[in-house]
């Protein structure tokens, strides 16, 4: 029985992550929760606004993955207009979406996670950040900066700016691609390719050092959830939903994302502002699943580009087993970067990529629209209803971090069980909890910060709610 989970509104940290660990009568860890406490109210303030404004309003949800929100939102608007967007527009959106995956994965791997990986979980917090990595491993830091730049630069070249570009619009994209821009991007590809190949090589070798982390980092059975293409291959922009279980069995396949409400339930817990989606057929909370890079590589039956496919085969092993430890999100991210670079090159070389037919124009033809795509951190869903004038009457969003909410709680619990000794959480434990959460790379702006550490408050509570120990990041 968990009588202890209450959030004292005074001590609650707005806009930051907070974690509570609950002990039972024997002072053993019973449960753990990751709380999200930020509230900006997007679902509500879009009411009464024209649906055509949604992409640029919704992009402001997150400055780390704005393009993902642009894509999902624009797809929902396409559905409201009841149009099939021009082929070239879909390809251009794909390119920007992949560029976004690359920059975001690079940020996550190099800027946010590499300090833990390179400098050690217990190293001095003052230098355990990207600036510390610049001192200790300048080449690696530089590679990270360059790779993120590659992605951001493509977004800027296509959309005019890097954060919140206004280029993806309902019905397609704003401007066709020019030959000059295409060649500019193509010229950057070999450099990016070299970086990702050497990073992959280094990280695979280095991974053997982390056997402990691999064992304890959210290494448990869950289902995995995400989009695959028509042939079951890795997919980021479109496609159908597939769910596999921890043994690799396909639980559900070819689900139409537009019917998400039939198979996803959304539970609300009092301790967090983040909803907890679950797979309806299994129920709550057993219907736990993970999304994101690891999930995508676990559900895919192949990858449509040669180098990434080879890495994927090695990743899944000869028996194509499902990879369970969340530590492997890191490697999965690197493989997806490789896929992104290969795919961008492939798309840019297609004959119709310079076509000037890039936008379908229509008014509102359907009162409801659902847009689903893969954001760097997992499946992203935007769902809008409008009135007959095209004004939004209702909106629902399921973000990637939401899908992972249950899994994050479980991951924190696992670390707490392995590392909590007594009732006073240590700095080292805090780091490990942070690193587990980092694996999922929660995209809520409140829990992922640009530089340095995630501001965390970690509380240990007794079975009757008394606070036994608390550590805040010093």
């Amino acid at each position, binding site marked *: 029985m968990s009588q202890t989970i209450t959030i004292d509104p005074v001590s609650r940290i707005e*806009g930051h992550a907070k974690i509570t660990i609950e002990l039972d009568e024997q002072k053993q860890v019973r449960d753990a929760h990751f709380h999200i406490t930020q509230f900006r109210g997007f679902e509500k303030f879009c009411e009464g606004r024209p649906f055509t404004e949604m992409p640029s309003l919704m992009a402001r*949800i*997150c400055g780390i993955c704005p393009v993902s929100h642009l894509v999902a939102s624009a797809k929902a608007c396409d559905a409201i207009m009841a149009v099939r967007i021009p082929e070239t527009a879909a390809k251009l959106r794909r390119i920007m979406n992949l560029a976004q995956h690359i920059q975001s994965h690079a940020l996550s791997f190099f800027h946010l996670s590499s300090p833990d990986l390179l400098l050690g979980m217990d190293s001095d917090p003052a230098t355990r950040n990207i600036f510390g990595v610049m001192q200790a491993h300048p080449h690696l830091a530089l590679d990270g900066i360059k790779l993120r730049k590659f992605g951001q630069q493509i977004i800027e070249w296509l959309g005019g700016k890097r954060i919140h570009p206004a280029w993806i619009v309902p019905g397609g994209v704003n401007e066709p691609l020019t030959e000059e821009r295409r060649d500019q991007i193509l010229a950057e590809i070999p450099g990016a390719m070299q970086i990702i190949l050497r990073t992959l090589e280094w990280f695979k070798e280095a991974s053997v050092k982390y056997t402990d982390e691999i064992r304890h980092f959210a290494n448990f059975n869950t289902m995995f959830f995400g989009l695959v293409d028509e042939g079951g291959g890795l997919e980021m922009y479109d496609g159908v939903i597939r769910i596999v279980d921890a043994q690799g069995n396909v639980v559900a396949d070819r689900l139409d994302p537009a019917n998400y409400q039939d198979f996803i339930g959304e539970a609300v817990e009092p301790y967090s502002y983040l909803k907890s989606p679950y797979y309806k057929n299994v129920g709550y909370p057993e219907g736990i699943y993970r999304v994101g890079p690891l999930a995508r590589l676990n559900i895919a039956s192949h990858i449509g580009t040669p180098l990434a496919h080879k890495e994927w085969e090695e990743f899944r092993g000869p028996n194509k087993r499902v990879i369970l430890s969340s530590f492997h999100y890191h490697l999965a991210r690197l493989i997806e970067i490789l896929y992104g670079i290969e795919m961008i090159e492939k798309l840019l070389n297609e004959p119709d990529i310079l076509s000037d037919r890039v936008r379908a124009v229509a008014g509102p033809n359907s009162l409801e629209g659902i847009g689903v795509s893969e954001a760097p951190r997992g499946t992203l869903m935007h769902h809008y209803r409008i009135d007959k004038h095209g004004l939004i009457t209702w909106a629902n969003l399921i973000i990637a971090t939401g899908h992972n909410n249950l899994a994050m709680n479980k991951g924190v619990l696992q670390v707490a069980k392995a590392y909590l000794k007594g009732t006073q959480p240590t700095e080292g434990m805090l780091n490990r909890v942070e690193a587990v959460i980092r694996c999922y790379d929660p995209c809520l702006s409140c829990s992922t910060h640009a530089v340095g550490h995630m501001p965390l408050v970690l509380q240990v509570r007794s079975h009757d709610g008394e606070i036994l120990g608390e550590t805040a990041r010093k």
Partner: protein
Amino acid sequence: MKKGNKPRVAVWKFASCDGCQLSLLDCEDELLAVAGAVDIAYFPEASSAMGKGPYDISLVEGSITTPHDAERIQQVRRVSGLLITIGACATAGGIQALRNFADVKAYTSIVYATPEYIQTLRKSTPINDHVFVDYELHGCPINKNQLVEIISATVTGRKPNIPPHAVCIECKQRGLPCIAVSQGIPCMGPVTHAGCNALCPAYNRGCFGCYGPMESANPDSLSAWWVGKLKVHRQDVMRAYRTFNAYADQFRKQSEAHEK
């Protein structure tokens, strides 16, 4: 700041999307130089860390939306030499300030099932409603070149070169024909703070004011022109002013005037 010592920089976050502080990491080529010239002492919100100031420069992103944050910004002010707000959230309350025009209870009860856990202020307000701000950088998000300019100006002790004029001037500088005059597209360029290099007009779409009002703007005249000449519906005028900078004074007055 003491001569010879690297200035210590802190980055603070309130209610926001992180886009503005990420602009700092977007300065790839300049990042190493910036990292060399200043000491980026980023830290969490824990109050024990705050005592470790003072910081020569504080970059503040985000708006104030909770009682806790209203206190926290006071502490930030106390430990900061120069306090620079970055982005529409910090300078005008941001997109989340749209709730200032509605009943916040309606918000919390619709979005979340347990509103009693939401400790939120009725309004999302800009930082300068709470403390003295030394410098404001506008935009949603800010322009990274302006960020680099303001940091390097501060480091060398000169006045930052951030032009105060309207987006219109940037169109002229780029030689873009005016889309409002030539095509009748409603454009907020005339009342909007420069800094984006006239991005939207360059893509043939009207500026939607993401840099917020420029100081000497005359939005009354622009609105009258939209309604009179371009036949823009009053509701649409209202909505045009009600986006990322909805709670900036000049924009707020326009949207309220066109509400009914």
